């Protein structure tokens, strides 16, 4: 049992059920790895005593005869989810050391299934960014290539799963914050349908887009955990009232007759050849598995970025207003008056990217600009969603690249926000439409980028996660990209 960390969740689950390993032992394996790989900077808060107490509780539940596929399995949470037992900072100075009096629903549901929390994961501040360079607590390293960013905003989640410092991590996706870091770190990332997982306890960035999801090694692992994570939550008014689902139900479904739409617009001039080649190869794999490739068009998808950078900052400017230094969080020292306290608390507490987005959002919502920006953006958003619906009359799933390039280098785009924003070109349209979407490892870049993974994006229609996970699993049965572990973190690293 020296290399438990490279085993699949299903394998670990079987070992726990067979009592070959206890939850406490498993937690210790990961805690030890987390400690050893602190330089990765994936974790922001680790409290071994809390983790071990949760693991002991899971073992006690099993001793009382309780079963369940996730009982005793470790999980790490993106620092966007609030937790009672670990600090919840959103990777911001604003919330340094903040302890929530309640757990996010996602955290609560996974804990209810018996999962053991390893700690809280680094990310871009308030989930704003595509490279994890916006964390107030320093960037996360990409385990594949130390010079490359891990992606963002869920860079901690993708990096720790890639480095096997957690078998599964929660993450959040607003415009691509699960899929892009999953692609950059060579792990499986899933963003379910907006409204399927609860947003209660997720520190809000853009409420109409924020969706909880997962980083895992495989689609099969994701299916197990997603089944426990998603469900109706009366505390979230945008949560959809549907029964819980078993997302593993279509894992074995053959690909024969599956129609995969390939959007022309996702293979335009901006797409790097070293990304296009593995993505095309993945599409060929699907064809070989019996799927049909259908040429589709999403003509308004390219408007996704401008639309997103109106809607998301608008919502963020309002969502982040609660951080005023009055009730919790950072408060400026020695304010001269109320206005001074609010202004300085916010100026000191927020990093540059939240500040930029608050300013943009405040601007687009201002009197006289609202119609031209916000209303127009919402109209185009509807148009994009309608185009997806038209596409889904001709196909069951949509596939394409996740990003235009492989992971870029630290500092490469930090000075140019717009080029950074372009990193989400292919992921934003699906987010705007609220569609479930995944990123699957499908290869690597070329030359100097030979250690930089490439992701294949799948997009399904609303609530069609099970079919998407089935297709992802079938691809992963036929390939082993998802089984690759970065050097220094695999079986040898025990």
């Amino acid at each position, binding site marked *: 049992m020296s290399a438990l960390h490279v085993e699949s969740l299903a394998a670990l689950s079987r070992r726990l059920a067979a009592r070959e390993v206890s939850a406490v032992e498993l937690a210790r394996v990961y805690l030890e790895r987390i400690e050893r790989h602190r330089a990765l900077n994936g974790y922001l808060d680790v409290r071994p005593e809390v983790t071990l107490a949760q693991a002991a509780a899971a073992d006690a539940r099993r001793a009382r005869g309780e079963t369940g596929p996730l009982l005793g399995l470790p999980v790490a949470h993106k620092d966007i*989810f*609030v937790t009672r037992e670990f600090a*919840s900072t*959103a990777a911001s100075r604003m*919330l340094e050391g*903040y302890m*929530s*009096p*309640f757990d*996010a629903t996602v955290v609560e549901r996974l804990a209810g299934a018996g999962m053991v929390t390893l700690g809280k994961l680094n990310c871009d501040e308030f989930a704003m960014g595509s490279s994890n360079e916006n964390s107030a607590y320093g960037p996360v390293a990409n385990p594949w290539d130390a010079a490359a960013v891990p992606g963002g905003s869920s860079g901690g989640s993708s990096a720790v799963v890639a480095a096997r410092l957690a078998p599964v991590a929660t993450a959040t996706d607003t415009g691509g914050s699960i899929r892009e870091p999953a692609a950059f770190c060579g792990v499986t990332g899933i963003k379910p349908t907006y409204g399927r997982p609860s*947003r*209660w*306890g*997720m*520190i*809000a960035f*853009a*409420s*109409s887009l924020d969706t909880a999801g997962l980083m895992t090694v495989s689609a099969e692992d994701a299916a197990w955990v997603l089944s426990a994570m998603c469900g109706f939550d*009366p*505390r*979230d*008014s*945008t949560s959809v009232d549907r029964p819980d689902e078993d997302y593993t139900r279509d894992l074995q479904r053959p690909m024969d007759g599956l129609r995969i739409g390939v959007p022309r617009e996702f293979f335009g001039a901006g797409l790097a050849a070293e990304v296009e080649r593995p993505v095309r190869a993945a599409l060929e794999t699907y064809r070989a598995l019996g799927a049909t490739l259908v040429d589709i068009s999403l003509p308004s998808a390219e408007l996704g970025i401008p639309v997103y950078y109106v809607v998301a900052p*608008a*919502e963020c*400017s*309002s969502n*982040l*207003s*609660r951080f*005023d230094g*009055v*009730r*919790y969080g950072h408060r400026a020292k020695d304010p001269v008056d*109320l206005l001074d306290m*609010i202004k300085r608390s916010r100026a000191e507490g927020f990093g540059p990217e939240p500040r930029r987005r608050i300013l943009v959002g*405040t601007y687009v*919502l*201002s*009197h006289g600009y*609202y119609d031209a920006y*916000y209303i127009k953006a919402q109209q185009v958003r509807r148009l994009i969603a309608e185009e997806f619906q038209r596409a889904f009359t001709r196909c069951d799933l949509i596939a394409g690249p996740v990003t235009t390039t492989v992971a870029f280098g630290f500092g490469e785009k930090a000075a140019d926000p717009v080029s950074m924003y372009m990193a989400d070109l292919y992921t934003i349209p699906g987010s705007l439409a609220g569609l479930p979407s995944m990123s699957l490892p499908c290869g690597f870049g070329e030359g100097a980028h030979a250690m930089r993974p490439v992701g294949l994006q799948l997009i399904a229609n609303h609530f069609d996660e099970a079919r998407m996970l089935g297709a992802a699993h079938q691809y992963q049965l036929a390939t082993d990209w998802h089984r690759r572990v970065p050097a220094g973190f695999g079986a040898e690293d025990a």
Partner: protein
Amino acid sequence: MAVPGAGWEVVIGLETHVQLSTASKIFSGASTAFGAEPNAQASVVDLALPGVLPVLNRGAVERAILFGLAVGATIAPRSVFARKNYFYPDLPKGYQISQYEIPVVQGGSLSTWVTPRGGEPYAKTVRLTRAHLEEDAGKSLHEDFAGLSGIDLNRAGTPLLEIVTEPDIQVADVERAALEAVAYARELHQLVTWLGISDGNMQEGSFRCDANVSVRRPGGPLGTRCEIKNLNSFRFMQQAIVHEALRQIDLIESGGTVVQETRLYDPDRDETRSMRSKEDAMDYRYFPDPDLLPLEIAPDQVEALRVKLPELPGAMRERFAREYGLGDYDCALLTTTRASAQYFTATVAALGAVAGDRGAKSVANWMAGDLAAALNSAQRDIVDSPVSPVQLAGLIARVLDGTINQKAAREVFAALWAGEASDADALIEARGLRQISDSGALEAMVDAVIAANPKSVEEFRAGKEKAFNALVGQVMKQSRGKANPAQVNELLRARLGG
């Protein structure tokens, strides 16, 4: 001397914040009860902790629908909650959730009676623009913190219905304009308490009026308006509007211009003073709240509530006048609250149809008289009256059928109030209060009194009516108050040949 403000027309529109009577807040499960320790009723949602989300209280929506139905408004099948963004320490989220572009209640009107001093009452109808749901803010406490401010978020998230009128009060008489505004506000207050959608407690801030006041030359274009806030009693409202209209008139007449601004009424000084002008008006950056779905109201939900809608005070006043022949004063008094109207109808019903209009009038008199006085001195609400409608009806029946006279009836009422017996008949028997209507016995008493009071008899014959009353008094005294006064009168007049 000219009447102050002569030659000017005052135009008023009103905005009223009505606190809805839900047990919990509009977007959280925290209690709305008044008077708790600061922040004891602030949940994680009210505190706007990271990660919390609002969930709409359906009870608040039902109350808004009831109101809309009562004023004949359109209930929007789809309305939208928006965020009104601004920073203030007692606004925890940095925005207030309110309805902006699409409110739940659209249109409607409210009619009332205005009684000018020394004039005839007249009907006044004010059109409503809208009524929308929103949350209240918390409170900043500036005393007791040695230079710091305290924040109490108990009130944050309390459900409010903001009711906005058209500027339909347009009167070329300052006092009269204020009177119409107050009449509207009273009618609205009665309606929301009648519907049970608000406790209407003005001291606790459950019913808060703001008045938009402007002045113009009759027929001229609308003037610039000022909004007066803090009108937390009807008396202050009257005073504040008069003061503000005269202030604007004086300003214009002395060559100045009215600046659009929000003014606060200070009842201690009877003046309004500027809070903020339009120049510092904030840009609230309204946009639909992405945490809340649009509020969809199905037609069958509206119909289900329409069935629950009680008879409204206006309709009830008309019915009382029609069915019982009661005057305006009685009708208005009986419909002051829904509870008093219910007490009245229950008492009339217990009295039975035989009593007719006389019975209804009698019930109204008792309710305005001894019952009102007793409730008042005991500080009790009519629903908690120790004398039930059935008991009061039993008492009134004995007056109407001549068993007891009015004086005895008041004694019986006091005994019923004190709980000495469960019905009037038992008390009448126990105390021997049955009035003497036996003409033989009364004749004997009358004769004895005439014989014993020759001086009074002489005076009466000399034309002094007072002397007659003295003789009646003597007979009543002889009967220990039990003589039938009408009969005594009759007998005396017959004997004295008057």
